[in-house]
């Protein structure tokens, strides 16, 4: 009970008592440190940061208690440890204020001022001290520890209250550590362990790679890579892209820009829109067939149809025979002699045979309907439910497909995953990730993205995950953080794209050429992902292979350019060194369209 009240007190005096299992701090390439809000799970960090991880030891143990067979005992011990640690931490923190106040108290000559000073310094430290004493009233071991600490304080030559406070708060911290060891032993005896792993998820090829974290695994760190290093050579991906771009340029120049655009729209319609519509049509047709099948199931539809046909035939026959009778007897003398009456009766008797078959058929139809009167509503209900479920499934599937497509387009256009895509990522816990006993859990460690991650690019993601488990039981996630890597420092990028150039001389229209941009990018804050994703202004140089003169295959030009919208639009005014002519240049970056489309 005392512990619960003390916990309430801790909350009331606003002591920082969070539930997070760790406190994260980003150590940036420029040497600055910034705390990462652990209430959020998605973070943008610099591509060459180091993440300092300080474990909240007691919160981790609190999470583990549910795995233990002695949950109540573990919870009791954890609560004690948490409270004692918090009291000692806050007590030691408030001690300087008290000591300074006491100096002022002794210097003061006026009683009123002394009272004022004591009132100003007393509240926090006396409350913390009283809470500690309160806890010791229910815990003889703690009381003995505190009494010993008190005597130690007054026997070492400094019997001031400052010294007493210091000894008492330090002793409570030591006592908490003893309890924690006791707790760790209980958990270790049950085979409860903790693990932590981090994985880099590349955005360009969806490859993943485990990141070494000191003390938690036996991964070999890959070769050091500095993403900020100036590298003007094009990578394999960009070289492949150039080949595709060259083909695209040839097609565009051959058929013209407007025709190429029209072809692209047609292709989009044929390859993307039409398959979707066809797929939907097929799905709904299938669904209608299925619904019809369900409606008819368990009902003898064929038998019913045959009986109705038989009934119909009998009725036609009667109709015919009645007509025949009418014609036969309408001309006859209706004195109705006995012979005539006999003849009529004979004909009617003959007709009654057909009537009875009608009755039989009608009875059969009624029976079929009667037999199935319960089946029909059930079938209708079943068909409706099936129809609804199937429609829902079709819609859900299509929405999922749409979301996936949107996510892919988003990733391609911006170079970053969407939150829902990031959410699907996880850290890999291979055999190389150690299973640690709690007593071996360090106070802190470092997720060293800068030195332990190797090759990486902007937009890649890192997932950090801590989990715990028990032998032969499914592990439980204790904490998970998602990081998106961003270049926050100024840097230079190279990219390739199609440029449309218009020579200064003559009336030539724009022609498509392959070009490469080398652009200086300004630094930004990690939080400003919108800027990096969608604005990302750059200034630099564009180098293009030109074809002003069709006979000369080796023309090239250079242009100072400004880029905007994540380099989707680059514009400048260049000079053709081969032809000695100026030209206007508008370059567009097309990361995925060119790979898949031939104009």
């Amino acid at each position, binding site marked *: 009970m005392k512990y619960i009240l003390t916990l309430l007190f801790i909350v009331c005096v606003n002591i920082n008592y969070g539930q997070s299992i760790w406190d994260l701090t980003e150590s940036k390439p420029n040497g600055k440190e910034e705390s990462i809000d652990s209430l959020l799970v998605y973070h943008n960090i610099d591509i060459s940061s180091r993440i300092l991880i300080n474990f909240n030891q007691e919160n981790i143990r609190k999470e583990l208690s549910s795995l233990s067979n002695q949950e109540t005992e573990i919870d009791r011990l954890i609560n004690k440890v948490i409270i004692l640690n918090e009291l000692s931490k806050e007590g030691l923190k408030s001690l300087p204020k008290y000591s300074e106040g006491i*100096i002022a108290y002794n210097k003061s000559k006026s009683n009123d001022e*002394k009272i004022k000073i004591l009132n100003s310094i*007393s509240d926090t*430290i006396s409350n913390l001290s009283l809470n500690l*004493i309160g806890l*010791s009233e229910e815990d003889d071991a703690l009381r003995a520890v505190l009494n010993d600490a008190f005597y130690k304080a007054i026997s070492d030559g400094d*019997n001031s*209250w400052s010294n007493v406070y210091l000894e008492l708060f330090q002793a409570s911290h030591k006592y908490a550590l003893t309890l924690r060891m006791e707790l760790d032993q209980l958990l270790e005896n049950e085979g409860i362990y903790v693990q932590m792993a981090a994985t880099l998820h590349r955005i360009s090829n969806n490859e993943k790679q485990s990141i070494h974290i000191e003390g938690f695994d036996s991964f070999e760190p890959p070769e050091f890579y500095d993403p900020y290093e100036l590298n003007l050579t094009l990578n394999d991906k960009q070289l492949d892209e150039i080949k595709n771009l060259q083909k695209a340029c040839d097609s565009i120049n051959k058929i013209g820009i407007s025709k190429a655009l029209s072809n692209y729209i047609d292709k989009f319609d044929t390859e993307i829109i039409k398959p979707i519509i066809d797929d939907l049509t097929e799905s709904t047709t299938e669904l209608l067939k299925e619904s019809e099948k369900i409606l008819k199931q368990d009902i003898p539809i064929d038998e019913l149809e045959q009986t109705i046909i038989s009934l119909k035939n009998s009725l036609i026959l009667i109709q015919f025979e009645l007509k025949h009778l009418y014609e036969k007897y309408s001309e006859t003398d209706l004195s109705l002699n006995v012979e005539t009456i006999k003849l009529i009766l004979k004909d009617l008797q003959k007709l009654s045979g057909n009537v009875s078959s009608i009755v039989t058929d009608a009875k059969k139809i009624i029976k079929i309907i009667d037999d199935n009167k319960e089946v029909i509503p059930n079938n209708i209900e079943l068909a409706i439910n099936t129809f609804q479920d199937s429609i829902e499934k079709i819609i859900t599937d299509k929405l999922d497909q749409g979301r996936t497509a949107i996510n892919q387009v988003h990733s391609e256009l911006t170079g970053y995953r969407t939150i829902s895509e990031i959410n699907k990522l996880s850290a890999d816990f291979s055999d190389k990730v150690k299973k640690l006993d709690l007593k071996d859990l360090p106070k802190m460690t470092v997720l060293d993205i800068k030195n332990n991650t190797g090759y990486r690019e902007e937009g890649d993601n890192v997932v950090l995950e801590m989990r715990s488990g028990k032998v032969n039981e499914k592990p439980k996630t204790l904490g998970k953080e998602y990081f998106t890597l961003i270049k926050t420092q100024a840097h230079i990028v190279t990219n390739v794209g199609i440029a449309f150039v218009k020579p200064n001389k003559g009336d030539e229209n724009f022609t498509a050429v392959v070009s490469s941009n080398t652009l200086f990018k300004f630094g930004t804050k990690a939080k400003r992902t919108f800027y990096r994703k969608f604005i990302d202004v750059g200034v630099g140089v564009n180098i293009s292979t030109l074809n002003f003169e069709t006979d000369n295959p080796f023309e090239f030009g250079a242009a100072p350019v400004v880029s905007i919208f994540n380099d989707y639009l680059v514009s400048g005014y260049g000079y053709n060194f081969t032809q000695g002519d100026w030209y206007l240049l508008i370059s567009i970056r097309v990361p995925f369209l060119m790979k898949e489309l031939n104009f």
Partner: protein
Amino acid sequence: MNHEKLITLPCQYPEEAKNSFKKLIFEEAYLLFIVLGTGETVNKILDLATKAAGSNQDPGMVIWITDYTVVSDIIESLNDPLNKLNDLDNTYAFALSIIDKVVDVIKKDENKLDILRIWKSFQLALKG
């Protein structure tokens, strides 16, 4: 025993004792721990209290009243909102805050009389 933190009232001289007591309560800015009576337990409490009262720089002070009847009128006039001093015969000691409010009483039936218990009185007095 830390005699520097102990003031014994001269109960054999009632007037002097009263004046000293009033002065300590109403004119000095101390956190007072007042011990009543005599005997083995009282001696133990005095020993613990003078140790717990801190150094000369700290505001804690211990007053020993061997015969409380000498100053009972002053004790009865103290600010005691919870009426803790309702049975002085059954009281070993009590604590006063800086504004002379009764904040804690140690009764004769208490069984945990250690230094932490006395420290609690001083902390309640400090809290006010």
